[in-house]
């Protein structure tokens, strides 16, 4: 298939838009779960007394933070699923379409 330099350029430009949009969401999300999880391991390693503080009955802060990480992971999974479906998928479809439109010309 013959393709002019400009059409390739258009396709690559539409991919750059998609990558930019992905970075806008994925970077903060990755920072959030990495901080929460690695932060918890650091706390458990170096701040035992803090992690051992009682919260409800015999349950200490460590177990509460572990439970929080479960909820956070599940929350991120659902949030990412929705964002990908509503933001990324349409952009990916558009990028593929722009390539097809250009190469037909």
């Amino acid at each position, binding site marked *: 298939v013959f393709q002019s330099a400009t059409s390739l350029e258009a396709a690559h430009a539409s*991919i750059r838009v998609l990558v930019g949009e992905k970075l806008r969401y994925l970077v903060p999300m990755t920072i959030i779960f990495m901080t929460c999880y690695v932060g918890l391991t650091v706390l458990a*390693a170096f701040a035992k007394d803090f992690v051992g503080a009682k919260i409800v009955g015999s349950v200490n802060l460590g177990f509460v933070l572990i439970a929080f990480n479960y909820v956070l992971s599940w929350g991120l999974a659902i949030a*990412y699923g929705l964002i990908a479906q509503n933001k990324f998928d349409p952009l990916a479809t558009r990028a593929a379409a722009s390539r097809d439109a250009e190469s037909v010309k």
Partner: protein
Amino acid sequence: MNITLEIFAVILLITIGITYWAARRTATTSDFYAADSGLTAAQNGFALAGDWASAAAFLGFSGLTALYGMDGAFYALGPLVAFCTVLLLIAEPMRNTGKYTLGDIVRTRMQTRTSLLAVIAGTVVVNFAYLMPQMAGAGVLVRLLTGISYDWAVIFVGISMIVYVAFGGMLATTWVQIVKAVFMMTAGAIILAMILSMVKFNPLLLFQEAESKYTASYLLPGNYLKNPFDQISLGLGYVLGLAGLPHVMTRFYTVPDARTARRSVVWVMFIAGAFFACTTVFGLAAANFVGQDAIRAADKGGNLALPLLAQYLGGGKGSFGGDLMLGFVAAVAVATILAVVSALTLSTSSAIAHDFYVNCLKGGHVDGKREVWVARVASVAIGLLAIALGILAQGVNVAVLVILAICVAASANFPVLVLSLFWRRFNTGGVIGGMTLGLVSSVALAMIGPAMRGADAWWPLVNPTIVSLPLGFLGCVLGTLLAGRDFDNEKRFDAFLFRVHTGEEPK
């Protein structure tokens, strides 16, 4: 313990039926390696759960919690968080870019044989480091549960996996994993319901009783992992290592597109995550009801905490309900090992047949029928090797290999994979540098650490990921810079990126 054998015989018959059914539908390379990419998100989600929850998760997490309290709960959380990394960064690009193996991605990106060879090395080392302890664990577990000898147990497990993989390929492996995941979830749900009814649906009572029985320090971290850096190393290894495990990542090729791959990760996060969370409850309940002394008496490492708990909940030793529950959990544990070793065998044979034989030796020019034949032969050879290694491993400390598998995956495979997908300047030199430094530092540090050398270790950490992971990335960067710029490769990156994000060729 006849009832274990009876329940396991039923599971075995189901899996053999599946293999017979799958074998008749497995003809092309796409069938053999990827179940013709025809699975739904829910099917792949269950198979991922069956693949990822090894015996270490099914039995180990409960046992660790029973004996060491919070550290067991930490162990159980990591495998769920690991899927956040996979979901956000790896699953969709992987589905869009590759076809059958981890090597496909690096080969498409670099288009060099040396980079592919480096990835094959990473795949084979990780898979065998993972496979050997599974075989040894199977030997111990099957002997403990059924009374047959260690060697025969290893041979039995090995032959079953060879049959599943060689005849039924990915389709049989997938359904063995799905069946196992369903049995595992069922066992988990029954045990959870029984525990909750015993504590009058107030899980806080479990913590209270554990505290009064074993003092407050039982519920603190650091009882199992004494060195604080080991704790962090373990966390890092899990969160980044999963993305470098070839036998789990190739599951994304079994679905038709990136959207389905994404949805299958969400599935596995909910089903496997819920199970992992339950193992903490099971561990506390086992410590309370069965008692740490009885658990240690049955197995020093605590691996029989869950079967013993099931026996207690069913009515205790000697009762019909107790035997039934014990038999059920034990049979599921054996099925768990079968599902995992099959995936490892399949993934290794794909690396040998597809990456090495077809793409390295023959430059991609091999007829599909011949490729499937080579892959089947490779799976038989790998299975026989695994049996031999499993028998040799009896009595040897294989714990170091478990750590090594996940450590190499995080320190060598993960940096190479992620930089291949996202860094324009990354080149063949970088692949080789990262793979070498990540692999060598992981193996060297694990070998001189306490897992291998006990008290006279030359290096304090059991798990070296905290050092070897940065070294792996450093190797990637240094290799890339030393090799000089590869302008053809950088120019191709735009087209590669198009594939990574859309799953289509940029014509």
